């Protein structure tokens, strides 16, 4: 379930430069893989090529809910510092598969809209890459749960 927690994302994906917890619903943040909600500042970097990249500094409201055999993380855009993002929300779900011992089901959904038409043009390909990236993160050598 640690994969649900945005605090683990920089270690799992090359796209995430950093994740900073701005505030949380608890006085003390729980360990990875536990339920919590709050706001985070995400620094997300897309490398278009070896010399050009785009950096998004995005404040997101997140809600991580973990319940034994399943978990879900919802997130939504609060604002992006440069105003590049108009919409950014989605969720991740992880659950054990009933009747299929040992199998874990992952579902990732992300919706975005950028202020830039060029980014909106490129986004389908990049989103595909990012979805694969997230899938790769889930399958990384880091312990799955």
């Amino acid at each position, binding site marked *: *379930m640690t994969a649900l927690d945005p605090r683990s994302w920089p270690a799992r994906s090359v796209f995430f430069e950093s994740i900073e917890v701005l505030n949380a619903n608890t006085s003390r943040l729980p360990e990875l893989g536990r339920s919590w909600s709050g706001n985070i500042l995400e620094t997300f970097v897309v490398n278009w090529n070896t010399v050009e990249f785009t950096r998004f500094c995005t404040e997101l409201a997140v809600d991580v809910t973990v319940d034994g055999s399943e978990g879900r993380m919802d997130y939504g855009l609060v604002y992006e510092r440069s105003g590049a993002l*108009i919409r950014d929300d989605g969720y991740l779900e992880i659950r054990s598969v009933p009747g299929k011992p040992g199998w874990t089901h992952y*579902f990732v959904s992300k919706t975005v809209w950028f202020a830039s038409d060029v980014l909106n043009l490129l986004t389908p390909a990049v989103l595909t*890459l990012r979805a*694969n990236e997230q899938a790769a993160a*889930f399958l990384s050598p880091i312990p799955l*749960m």
Partner: protein
Amino acid sequence: MKAPIREWDGVWPETVTHLRAAVLAADYYGRFGLGSASPIGARSPVHPDHAIGIFNSLRRSFGIRWGSPFPTPAQVPGPVAYASEYLDKVTQRSLRKLIRVGFRPAPVNEPRLERMIPRSGLTLGTGRDPHVSQLLAAPARLAARSSLPPPAGGSREIDGRLPNPNESTDTTVVRPRHSEAPTRAPTRSWKPTRVTLEQRAITATKELWVHGRWKKS
């Protein structure tokens, strides 16, 4: 699918498909080291310059994972080398087609495109087609090469799918068409990434299953 420049209309859908297939194939192979077909879910055109940028990003991710942005068969497992070679071929052929119909990198992009290509003497991918590698490495010469002959063997064998899944050395993977978890053999499985375009919303969804130990927290 309408090309951004009218003269590209004839080749645009195929080019986009090929480039995307190449990118995704490389992504799948590079990141997972397995798979047999390119999951082409998106429908939006990608400009070749940008595709090359994404292509180079993938090379970079190859570098992070395998220690070299241009992995050779000796450096990486078989499927990755295979994907690298495939990516090279597809990208080169797509560029050839664009060049034949008059594609030129925009002047503002030429220096950038040049910078994209390492000057270390390495050619793209396996470098099996030095002619096109030279084209990529020297965009200023693209115009002089606009009457390139078609590649040997024609280009119809590329249909957006990896040609022979049997060449993959990983036999532990299946790509189910159903929405239930597989019941045997594979240790991981997924549906192709689905990207949908709506008004002011681009949504990507990904669904996968992993077989492994469920550690109680």
